[in-house]
């Protein structure tokens, strides 16, 4: 037993809880505002788990980390306590899995495996967080997506998905931990892991993804209104006219500039625009305009079903196609009818893959629209409910991961913000401030090639599952083999 092992096994429970608390706060801060902390966030937890005397203590330590990390996304409180508590408990449960698997497998397979294990287990838990109705923003790749210095590592995303970048972050944590606390036995694999992380960065810097070659001028219209203005607009025609006039004015600025594509945020105008000729005339591109519009609207059909809609509008006001939000926000959008499929809008400026709000948080929707031919991604969001809370940053970063994974340019348009244009390397081309009424102009490029991630989806998770399964298998075999030997030596 190394001196460090000895020290770790003698750690008082209070010291372990303190270290877990530190890890939880570091994870939370990384998720909401200090992204680079992700590179070290779980190191204190790995120390706390070392030599943990019981599985229940390990589970508790992991749960504390998940809970503290989860509650940092308090911005969703504006969407209800249920979502906030559910999300935090869900995040805690993932970290319980993390802690228990680490405790069960560390030291049982091999030194290199020990160093890989935190990355494998983190990848598993992060993947689980993309499944189910409570899947919400909490990924290491999302922490890093707006840090230019770490952009080379994001080049892995078109191959493995954002999940692979998160694996790399977790591997860096593990490498650091074993380098400092792992003792002599683990030093070589730790250095190898860190060297591998460095090599991926060097490769990413040397081979950025292609940016595409078909230019398209775009404009994102950000009304900048807060939820109280929309609430007032429900009850008062004067407030409603303000909303309409805001989008009318900003949109016509964009039409007059002659951009190819104008995009509104999610549910920008909550009036029956499609059924009201006067509103169509005022808001949609006039017949002599060059621009087409993708308009975020609420739409109620004649059967009384309401949809969160992205309507494709051509000059003159016709709407040849529309996409209805498929993945609705649990509880908050229970009154809406979901759309039937993720599919791109086939427009005269290209095939546009629309993701509405929550849909951009998940990898599956972006992948599906890219696989079906989307050449540009549009993320239409509201985000006014998050106010100035830092969750908006992470939501924007999660959308940026969709650009990385699919190799597409992505225009994100938020009602309150953030409105930004992101290229396939993750670089931002302009950004509007929160609650700023303005138009973001930029030039995107269209691409139609398919990245390995779009072709093969969660193959990286498959590799991780194989490695984890292999570790479990070897660990069980060794335990079984050790049992007769120890029984025999006891008999002797």
């Amino acid at each position, binding site marked *: 037993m190394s001196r460090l092992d000895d020290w770790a096994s003698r750690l008082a429970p209070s010291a372990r809880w303190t270290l877990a*608390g530190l890890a939880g706060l570091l994870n939370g801060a990384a998720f909401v505002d200090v992204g680079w902390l992700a590179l070290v966030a779980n190191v204190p937890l790995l120390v706390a788990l070392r030599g943990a005397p019981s599985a229940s203590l390990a589970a508790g330590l992991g749960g504390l980390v998940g809970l503290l990390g989860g509650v940092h996304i308090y911005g969703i409180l504006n969407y209800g306590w249920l979502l906030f508590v559910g999300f935090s408990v869900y995040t805690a449960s993932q970290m319980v899995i993390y802690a228990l698997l680490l405790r069960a497998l560390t030291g049982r397979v091999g030194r290199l495996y020990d160093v890989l294990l935190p990355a494998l287990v983190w990848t598993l838990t992060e993947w689980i967080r993309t499944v189910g109705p409570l899947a919400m923003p909490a990924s290491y790749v999302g922490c890093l997506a707006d840090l230019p210095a770490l952009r080379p590592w994001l080049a892995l995303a078109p191959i493995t998905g954002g999940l692979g970048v998160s694996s790399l972050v977790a591997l860096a944590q593990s490498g650091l931990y074993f380098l400092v606390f792992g003792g002599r036995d683990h030093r070589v694999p730790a250095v190898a892991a860190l060297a591998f992380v460095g090599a991926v960065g060097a490769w990413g810097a040397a081979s950025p993804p292609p940016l595409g070659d078909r230019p398209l001028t775009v404009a994102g219209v950000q009304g*900048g209104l*807060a939820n109280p203005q929309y*609430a007032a607009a429900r*009850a008062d*025609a*004067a407030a409603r006219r303000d909303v309409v006039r*805001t989008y009318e004015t900003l949109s016509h600025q964009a039409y007059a500039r002659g951009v190819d594509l104008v995009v509104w945020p999610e549910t920008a105008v909550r009036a029956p625009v499609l059924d009201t000729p006067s509103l169509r005339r005022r808001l949609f591109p006039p017949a002599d305009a060059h621009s087409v519009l993708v308009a975020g609207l609420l739409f109620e059909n004649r059967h009384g079903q309401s949809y969160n809609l992205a309507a494709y509008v051509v000059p003159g006001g016709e709407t040849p196609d529309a996409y209805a939000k498929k993945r609705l926000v649990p509880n908050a959008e229970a009154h809406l009818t979901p759309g039937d499929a993720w599919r791109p809008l086939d427009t005269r400026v290209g095939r546009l893959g629309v993701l509405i709000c929550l849909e951009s948080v998940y990898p599956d929707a972006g992948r599906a629209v890219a696989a079906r031919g989307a050449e540009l991604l549009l993320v239409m969001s509201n985000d006014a409910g998050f106010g*100035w809370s830092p969750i908006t940053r992470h939501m924007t970063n999660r959308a940026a991961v969709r650009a990385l994974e699919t190799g597409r340019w992505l225009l994100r348009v938020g009602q309150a913000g953030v409105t930004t244009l992101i290229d396939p390397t993750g670089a931002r081309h302009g950004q509007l401030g929160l609650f700023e009424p303005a138009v973001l102009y930029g030039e995107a490029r269209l691409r139609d090639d398919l990245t390995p991630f779009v072709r093969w989806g969660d193959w990286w998770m498959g590799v991780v599952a194989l490695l984890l399964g292999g570790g479990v298998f070897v660990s069980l075999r060794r335990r079984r083999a050790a049992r007769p030997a120890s029984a025999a030596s006891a008999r002797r």
Partner: protein
Amino acid sequence: MLAPLLLAYAGARAWAGYHELRRQYVVEGLFRTYQPPYPDGDAWVIDPRPGDLWTEVRDRYRPGVPLPPPPAAPTPEAWTRALAALDLPAHPAPDAWSGAEPRLWFGPGGPWLLTGVFGRQPVFFDPARGVVMAPERLPDAPALELTGVRENPW
């Protein structure tokens, strides 16, 4: 040593988050500044923008028309004469307000402009507060109904 620091940080973060979530937003809109809504007794001031009632009537029902001289007094009679100059026919309101037609209400604190109902809650413009949503119908008081007058909903 570490634990107090963590507790202090967690406390500071919780404090900041609490205030962030409770923060009332003043939004600089394209055409005007939007103040945050606030409760006022049982009512909600949903769009705080104190202003001139006479201008509000013109802006809602005769937008673009030059503003005639305002009513000489806060009485139904003076308002009836002034409204005629805006080509807005006004008559004494016969009964309880259904919300179908706008009204000028001359109760305590009035006159207020009753613009519509949201659910069952009356919505009105009070020059001292802005657009207000009351929890229940306003008390009986002299009122003028703007007969046949419709506000552009958009």
